[in-house]
């Protein structure tokens, strides 16, 4: 990842703040503000990618924007160039990029096209309308036409099997952004959102930094931490959900419902007669015909659970017959895919992992075990044992204490307490 940045040469360069910069004039998100505050004239571009609080790709993009807007100058490139770029940015009509250094006549792309690619890429963070080169009032078909035109110019297939050098990654980046612009502007709902946010944002004076349009991944880093086990219902996702709404005429819908009901009945008959795979297939079809019926989904889960139980059972049996430990471990782990919370399997996998000295994995499974049955002291003891083997004595004893609070007289707890005691008193005896 992070492959789509400007190449290794750029990574070693050191950005510093432009001498005449007044940060108060800028409009930045907190994350971008943080990134700006890390720029001290000593930290390299590459290091910033890792400490910037954003993904490396986004740091790349943000730094490129900063540079283009004259917020920062980058050492090793010469102040003259930065000044020129800053000047160009103040006059977007003449937004030419001094790309000579990056143009390479030996590549399989004509030099003039290379220049066009670099120019277009430097303006990727423009609002979507501008990116596609259409008016805010453009009709759907104009948006599509603009997308197709840009696709034909910048889609990587245009240079299939040619030596594209660093332009390969640039073309991919350009096309992804163009496709994103088209995707969001061609849906009325997302387009309205974009227009609203553009309207609410006063057009900033030229030469200043402008926030990218909403809905991009740019802001994800600043989103609040999501609740347990849930996906962040990001804005992008809401937009996608709206876009993916089904549009089916009512007559067809009624026919489909009838069909779905028949399939559901067939599935129940199959399940009743023990043919679970067949039942699952019919049920899946029923859901395909009528995805809104909750009954089908729960029916499907039930059948799927039976299929999985059968599969897990078969795998467990196979694992029991396996003579090689590695093979048994593999089979058991597969069984866990079908029955993730099965206590006995978790226990066996955890102890096999310990035997195989795969402590990281063992810990993962032991933690799951504790999660599934926090009321069983022995699980805590098992986790404590893994942590002790990993040499994490403080955490091991904390785990043991949690177990002891559940049941201090549990034999496993007692045994583990003894082992912990020994490993502390005998240095190097962690095993």
């Amino acid at each position: 990842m992070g492959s789509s940045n400007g190449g290794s040469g750029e990574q070693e360069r050191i950005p510093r703040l432009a001498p005449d910069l007044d940060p108060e004039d800028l409009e930045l998100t907190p994350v971008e503000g943080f990134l700006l505050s890390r720029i001290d004239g000593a930290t390299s571009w590459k290091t910033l990618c890792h400490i910037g609080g954003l993904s490396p790709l986004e740091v790349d993009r943000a730094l490129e924007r900063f540079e283009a807007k004259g917020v920062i100058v980058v050492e090793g490139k010469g102040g003259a160039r930065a000044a020129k770029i800053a000047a160009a940015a103040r006059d977007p009509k003449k937004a030419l990029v001094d790309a000579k250094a990056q143009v390479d006549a030996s590549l399989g792309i004509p030099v003039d096209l290379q220049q066009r690619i670099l120019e277009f890429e430097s303006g990727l963070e423009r609002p979507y309308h501008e990116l596609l080169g259409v008016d805010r009032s453009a009709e759907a078909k104009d948006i599509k036409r603009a997308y197709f035109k840009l696709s034909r110019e910048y889609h990587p297939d245009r240079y299939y099997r040619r030596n594209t050098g660093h332009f390969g990654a640039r073309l991919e980046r350009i096309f992804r952004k163009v496709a994103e612009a088209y995707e969001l502007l061609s849906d009325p709902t997302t387009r309205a959102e974009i227009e609203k946010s553009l309207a609410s944002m006063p057009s900033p004076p030229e030469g200043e930094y402008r926030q990218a349009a909403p809905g991009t991944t740019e802001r994800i880093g600043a989103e609040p931490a999501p609740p347990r086990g849930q996906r962040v219902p990001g804005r992008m996702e809401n937009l996608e959900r709206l876009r993916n709404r089904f549009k089916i005429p009512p007559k067809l819908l009624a026919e489909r419902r009838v069909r779905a009901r028949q399939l559901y009945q067939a599935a129940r008959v199959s399940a009743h007669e023990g043919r679970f795979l067949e039942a699952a297939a019919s049920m899946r079809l029923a859901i395909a015909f009528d995805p809104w019926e909750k009954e089908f989904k729960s029916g499907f889960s039930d059948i799927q659970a039976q299929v999985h139980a059968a599969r897990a059972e078969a795998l467990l049996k196979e694992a029991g017959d396996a003579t090689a430990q590695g093979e048994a471990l593999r089979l058991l782990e597969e069984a866990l895919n079908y029955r993730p919370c099965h206590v006995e399997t978790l226990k066996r996998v955890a102890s096999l992992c310990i035997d195989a000295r795969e402590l990281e994995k063992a810990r993962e499974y032991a933690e799951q075990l504790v999660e599934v049955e926090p009321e069983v002291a022995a699980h805590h003891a098992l986790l404590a044992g893994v942590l002790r083997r990993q040499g994490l004595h403080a955490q091991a004893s904390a785990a043991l204490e949690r177990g002891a609070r559940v049941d201090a007289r549990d034999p496993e707890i007692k045994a583990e307490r003894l082992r912990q005691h020994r490993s502390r008193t005998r240095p190097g005896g962690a095993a």
Partner: protein
Amino acid sequence: MSRVIGIDLGTTNSCVAVIDGGKPVVIPNTGGYKTSPSMFAIAPDGKRLVGHLAKRQAITNARNTVYASKRLIGRRYDSPEMKRALDLFPYEIVEGPNQDARIVVAGKTFSCSEISGIILREMKRVAEEYLGEPVSDAVITVPAYFNDTQRQCTKDAGKIAGLEVLRIINEPTAAALAYGLGHNREEKIAVYDLGGGTFDISILELAEGVVEVLATAGNTFLGGEDFDRRIVDHVLELFKKTEGIDLSDDLMARQRLKDAAEKAKCDLSTLQTTEINLPFIANDHSGARHLNVEITRETLESLVGDIVERTMKSVEQCVADAGLDPRAIDHVVLVGGQTRMPLVQQLVTKYFGKPPHRGVNPDEVVAVGAAIQGRVLVSDERDLLLLDVTPLSLGIATFDGHFATLIQRNTTVPVRKSHVFTTTRDNQSAVKIRVLQGEAERADENHMLGEFVLSDIPPAPKGQPEIEVSFDIDANGIVNVSARDQSSGREQSITVRTTGTLSEDEIQQLVRENAEYELPGEA
């Protein structure tokens, strides 16, 4: 620059084309036919037969003749389609090591990719003979609804045949390219493809050389062979009535009758009346019997009318799925030999309110389209661009066993999407990222592409760490997944290649093995 061939690897027949002197040429095989049956057989003397040779002995050597293996490729042995195939096909199908289906021919077990590979090798040979030069690059077509595994298995088949598969493209898209549609203004196109064994209908949108699939529907168990079967049954019944002899268990008679029925069907596309004339079809106490039956176009239409009606039901559904009115379709394209039948053309014309495009040879247009795409990829011609999409959604499994989609199906590639996830336990030190593909809500009902662990997450209360998971698909369809802990900056990633049902080693082994077989050409 080496030439790229386009191959329509069909369920019943296959076809190969190339761009020669700027014009598409459909390459005839040694027998002069422009399509070859997608059949493979091993004769009783151990000789391998492909194409027409295999077809000519298909009924008499039914157990060792493989046809329509495309219906099995990339499917799990326990899938419903497979169950149907097990009932229908006379050859032996067994479960392979990866829950795939393998086919036993004359005691040797073949994977479906290998069978397709044998057919592709034959098409490669046909092209090389015609061009007088070696051919290594190909574009192969598949139905629009094929998933990544089926596509990958088809790619593997190409590898086994000694071909480098530049792209796998959708059959309806290839057909549209072949008709040269969509170069200028925006057009909506319906592709009605009635082949030997399958029926597909797709609605495409084309504009300025860019093609998008809007909807697709069809029936994988309906095609021209059903028409033949109806004729055969009809004639068998007539013969029984008039001559008192039941030929249905006589394999040699059936083989002759099936060949004749197919020919009569083709004749009736241009003639009003034809006859099936099979001398010495049977023997009884009164001596040799001859079969001589006259069939009119009306008879044929009454025999198969309901099948054609059924295809129109799929057409209606597909047009509705695309959210369109039939009148909004600008062009209707017919593909597949069976669309030569006047009844098919009448019904299609009536439904769409306009006559369909039909080149002279609807069974060759898909191969031509594939050749055009191959040419576009490697040459300097730039008037065309195919926008590839992901056929199925991609995402990861969540802790509670759900499937979190990051990239929706039908998203144009290349694409990159990312999302932030978090931990579910206090001080959790590692998360396992399971990469899945499919449309089901529950994680384990989807196809797993790969997994990896992001470890050394600094201790924090559950729900606090922010783990950004990014999916990146490049123009060649290669998926890269990475996970990054925002606080520590630690990052882990994997490159996922959708795998077929064969391992790389198996494929290499088969490439060597099959290169040794010098297959007999067409007679």
